[in-house]
C-alpha cells in the first residue's frame, strides 16, 4: 500500500475509432475510502472514465493520452496478465443493468464466488459463507438459499444488490458503480442506495459513483465531478456544488431538482396556483379530450383499469407513475395503438374508434403523439424537410413552394434554423431531433398533443429548453397536452392538472398544487417523499421516517 491517492487520473483522453473524442483532458484524484460522484448526461463520458479505472475501453475506442495510476501502478503500462490480476481484486465494477451483467445460464452463487476463488483469495466454502453473510447485510430474502437462483428468477432491485455483493466479494480497494440505481423505480432506489452506502462505508472502500441524477449522487458522494460532452465542467466538495454552483451547467443540474427554472421566475406552488387561476373561471370548459373507463389488458394482466379524465383546450394534464403503472398503456390507448381496449375516448365530443386504423383522417390529425426517443421516431433515411412537411402534405394537400415555406415556418416555430431542412436526422443532436418531432406533430395543426416522456432521454439543460418551448407553443397555439412522465419535478413545472397512476389504477386526479400538497393517497405520499432532494442527509431522514410507523 503506497501513500497518496488511491486513484489518480491525469489528462485522460479517449477517442473512438473514427477519431471522435469521447473524453478529453480529464484529471481526478480519489483518496482511500472516499466517494467521488461522476455526474453528467448519457454521452458525457462517465462510463468511459469509470471503465478506464479498470484499464478497459469498450468497443473500438482507445486511450490516446493520459495516465491512470491505481495505487502506484500505471494501468496503461501493465501487461494483459497484470491487468487481469488487478481486476475484480483491487478494483471492481458494478454495471448499470444487473440483468445484463449476470450470466443467464449460471446460478448467482457460482458467479459471485467465482472471483475470489479464481484469484486465489479463499476456498469455495469460505467464499460461499462470506456471500451469504453479505446477502444478509444487504437485506436479501432467504440469504442461505438466495444464491441458488438464476438471474431471471430475481427482481431488479435484488439483482442489483447481488451485483454489489459480487463486486465486493474480493474486497477491492476501489468500487466503480455505473448508474446502479438508474434502472430501478424511485421507491426501490432508496433501499438500494442506502444499502450501497452502508456496504461501502462498512468496508472502507473508495468508490466512483457514476450517475446522471445529481440528487441521488449527492446522498452518497463526498466530492463531485461534473462532466459534459467528455469534458470537466466543475469539481469540488458536494455541499459546495449544491449550495454554490459556479458554472451554468452545474446550476441547471441543481435547478432541475429543486424545480427552479433557469430564465423564468421560480415555478413553485405559487406559480402553478396562478396558472390555475389564469384559466377561465367558468365551470369546466368543454373538454377537447374526454376519456371514460379506459381499461387495457395484456393477456391475463390488467395494465390499466377504469381510467377517466377530461382534458380542456389549452391545458396540460400530466400523467405520472412508475414503470409498470400503466401510463404508456394509457397514452397508447388514447392514440389508438392498442385496439383491444375497453372504455370510451372522445375527441371534441365525437367518440373515437379503439384502433387507429378505424379512425378517419381528421380524427388522426387532431390527436398527435410525440415519442420518447427521437432517434427512432424519425426515419433516418429521410430529410428533415420531408419529415416535417409530410403531415402538411398528407392532411392539407400542400405542395411545392407553399409546402417549403410551411416547413420553414414550422422549423422556426420550434426554434430551429430552416436550413436544417436539407439535413438527415443522423446529423442532428438529441435536442434538435426532439424539436423536429414536435415540429412534425405541429404540422398537422392538432388540438391535442400526447407527449410520451419526451424529455426523459435528454440532457437537463436541453430538457428545460424543450419544456419552455412546449409552454410557449401552448400559449401561442392553444394546444392541449397529455404529458406522460415519471418525474415529479417536471410535473410541478408545467402541469395544470395531474393524474397519478399506480399499478394501473388512478389514485389521484386534480390540480397539480392541490394533489401534491394534500397527498391524500398513500402512494402519492410515498412518491413525493421518494423524490431525492438536493440535500445531504435526506436519505437518512427518509429511511428513518419510513422505519417510524407513526409517520406512515
Amino acid at each position, binding site marked *: 500500500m503506497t501513500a497518496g491517492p488511491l486513484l489518480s487520473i491525469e489528462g485522460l483522453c479517449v477517442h473512438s475509432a473514427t477519431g471522435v473524442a469521447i473524453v478529453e483532458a480529464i484529471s481526478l484524484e480519489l483518496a482511500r475510502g472516499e466517494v467521488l460522484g461522476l455526474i453528467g448526461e448519457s454521452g458525457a463520458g462517465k462510463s468511459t472514465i469509470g*471503465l478506464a479505472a*479498470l484499464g*478497459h475501453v*469498450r468497443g473500438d475506442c482507445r486511450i490516446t493520452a493520459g495516465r491512470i495510476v491505481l495505487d502506484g501502478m500505471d494501468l496503461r503500462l501493465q501487461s494483459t496478465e497484470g491487468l*487481469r*490480476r*488487478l*481486476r*475484480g*481484486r483491487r478494483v*471492481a*465494477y458494478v*454495471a448499470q*443493468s444487473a440483468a*445484463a*451483467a*449476470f*450470466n*443467464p*445460464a*449460471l446460478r448467482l452463487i457460482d458467479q459471485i464466488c*467465482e*472471483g475470489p476463488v*479464481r*484469484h486465489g483469495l479463499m476456498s469455495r466454502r469460505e467464499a460461499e459463507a462470506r456471500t451469504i453473510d453479505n446477502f444478509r447485510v444487504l437485506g436479501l430474502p432467504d440469504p442461505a438459499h438466495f444464491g441458488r437462483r*438464476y438471474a*431471471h*428468477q430475481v427482481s431488479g432491485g435484488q439483482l442489483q444488490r447481488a451485483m454489489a455483493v*459480487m463486486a465486493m466479494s474480493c474486497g477491492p480497494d476501489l468500487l466503480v458503480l455505473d448508474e446502479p440505481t438508474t434502472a430501478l423505480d424511485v421507491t426501490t432506489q432508496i433501499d438500494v442506495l442506502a444499502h450501497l452506502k452502508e456496504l461501502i462505508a462498512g468496508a472502507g472502500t473508495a468508490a466512483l459513483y457514476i450517475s446522471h441524477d445529481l440528487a441521488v449522487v449527492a446522498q452518497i458522494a463526498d466530492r463531485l465531478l461534473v462532466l459534459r460532452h467528455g469534458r470537466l465542467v466543475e469539481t469540488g466538495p458536494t455541499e459546495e456544488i449544491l449550495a454554490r454552483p459556479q458554472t451554468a451547467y452545474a446550476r441547471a443540474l441543481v435547478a432541475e431538482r429543486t424545480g427552479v427554472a433557469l430564465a423564468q421566475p421560480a415555478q413553485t406552488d405559487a406559480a402553478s396556483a396562478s396558472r390555475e387561476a389564469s384559466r377561465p373561471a367558468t365551470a369546466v370548459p368543454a373538454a377537447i379530450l374526454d376519456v371514460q373507463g379506459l381499461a387495457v389488458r395484456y393477456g391475463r394482466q390488467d395494465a390499466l383499469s377504469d381510467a377517466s379524465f377530461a382534458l380542456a383546450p389549452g391545458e396540460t394534464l400530466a400523467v405520472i407513475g412508475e414503470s409498470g403503472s400503466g401510463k404508456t398503456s394509457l397514452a397508447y390507448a388514447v392514440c389508438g395503438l392498442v385496439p383491444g381496449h375497453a372504455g370510451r375516448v372522445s375527441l371534441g365530443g365525437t367518440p373515437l374508434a379503439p384502433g387507429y386504423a378505424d379512425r378517419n383522417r381528421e380524427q388522426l390529425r387532431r390527436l398527435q403523439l410525440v415519442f420518447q426517443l427521437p432517434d427512432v421516431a424519425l426515419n433516418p433515411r429521410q430529410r428533415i424537410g420531408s419529415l416535417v412537411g409530410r403531415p402538411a402534405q398528407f392532411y392539407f394537400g400542400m405542395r411545392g413552394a407553399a409546402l417549403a415555406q410551411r416547413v420553414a415556418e414550422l422549423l422556426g416555430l420550434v426554434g430551429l434554423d430552416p436550413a436544417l431542412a436539407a439535413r438527415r436526422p443522423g446529423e442532428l443532436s438529441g435536442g434538435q431531433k426532439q424539436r423536429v418531432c414536435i415540429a412534425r406533430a405541429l404540422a398537422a395543426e392538432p388540438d391535442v398533443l400526447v407527449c410520451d416522456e419526451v424529455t426523459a432521454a435528454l440532457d437537463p439543460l436541453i430538457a428545460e429548453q424543450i419544456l419552455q418551448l412546449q409552454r410557449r407553443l401552448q400559449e401561442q397555439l392553444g394546444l392541449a397536452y397529455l404529458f406522460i412522465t415519471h418525474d415529479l419535478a417536471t410535473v410541478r413545472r408545467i402541469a395544470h392538472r395531474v393524474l397519478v397512476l399506480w399499478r394501473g389504477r388512478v389514485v389521484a386526479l386534480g390540480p397539480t398544487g392541490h394533489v401534491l400538497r394534500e397527498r391524500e393517497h398513500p402512494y402519492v405520499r410515498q412518491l413525493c417523499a421518494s423524490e431525492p432532494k438536493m440535500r445531504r442527509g435526506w436519505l437518512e431522514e427518509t429511511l428513518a421516517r419510513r422505519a417510524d410507523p407513526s409517520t406512515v
Partner: protein
Amino acid sequence: MAGVTRLIAARVGMGLVTLVVISALLFFATDLLPGDVAAALLGPQATPEALATIRATLSLGDPAGMRYVHWLVGVLHGDFGRSLATGRSVVTVLLPRFANTLALAGLAALVSVPLALGLGLAAAMRPGGRLDRLVSTLCLVTISVPEFFIGYLLILIFSVQLGWLPSLAVLSGGMSFVQRLGAVTLPVITLVLVVLAHMLRMTRAALLSVMAAPYIETALLKGLRRRTVVLRHALPNAAAPIIAVIALNLGYLVVGVVVVEVVFVYPGAGQLMVDAVGKRDLPLVQACGLAFATTYVILNLIADVVAILVNPRLRAA
C-alpha cells in the same frame, strides 16, 4: 418440468403435421402440374397403348384424393408401389441404397462435427488472430466452391496422381470393413470439407455473438482468464445456437450427398433419385423424395427439442 414437456410435445406434433403435409405435397406435385401426367411422363412420341398402361399403373383414373389415401396407406405398410422403369418394388430398391447413403452421411457427420466445434472454439478465442483468419479464408473458399469441384480435385490428386485411393466408390458384397472404408474415404472427405466450412462459419458466428454479450464483459472485468470466460460463461449460452447450426448443416449434408454420390458413383439413394428423375420414374422419385424430406424434418426436430432442453430459462421452474 411441465412447461418443457408441453413445449416438446408441441414441437413433435408440428413435426408430424409437417411430414403429413409434405407427403401430400410430394404426392400432389404431380397432380397440381398442368397437362396430362401420362403424356408428360412418356413424351409426345408415346403410343396410345403405352399411355393406357401408365394410366392403369398409376391409377390415374381415380380421383386424386382417393389415390393419395391409397398411397399413404401403402406407405404406412411399407409399400411404395412399383418402379416404372424396372417393375420391382420400390422399397426393395430403395432400402439398401438409403442405408448406404446414411452410412456415408453418418461418417461425414462423425468427422465434421467435432472438427467444426473444436476449430470454431479455437478461432473464437482469439478473433482476428492468425488461426481465425486462416480458418475464415479456408471457409470462404470451400463454401464458394461446388461439391463436384472438390470431389474431382481430390480424385485427381489422390487417385490418379498418387494412386492412394480408388476413384470410384464401388462397394461389393465380399469386401472387408477396411476395404469398404478405403472405398468411401474420398467421398467422405469431400462431404466433410463441404459441410465443415458451413458449420465452422456458423459456429464461430454463434460464439462471437455470445461473446459480445454484456455478461461476458462483466466476467472479464472480474479478472477471469479468457479461457475460463469462453468455456464457463460463453459456451453454455452458445449451446443452443450451435446445436441449431449443426442440425442445419446436417441438412446440407443430405443435399451434398446427392452430388457426391454422382461424382464417385457411390451406390446410394442420391444417385438412385437422380437416375429416377432422368427416367421420369415417378413412384421411385416420390419415395426417394419422401425419404430425404423425412430425414431432414427429423433432424430439425431433434435440433429444436435439444435447444428447448438446453435453455437455462426453462430449468428449475
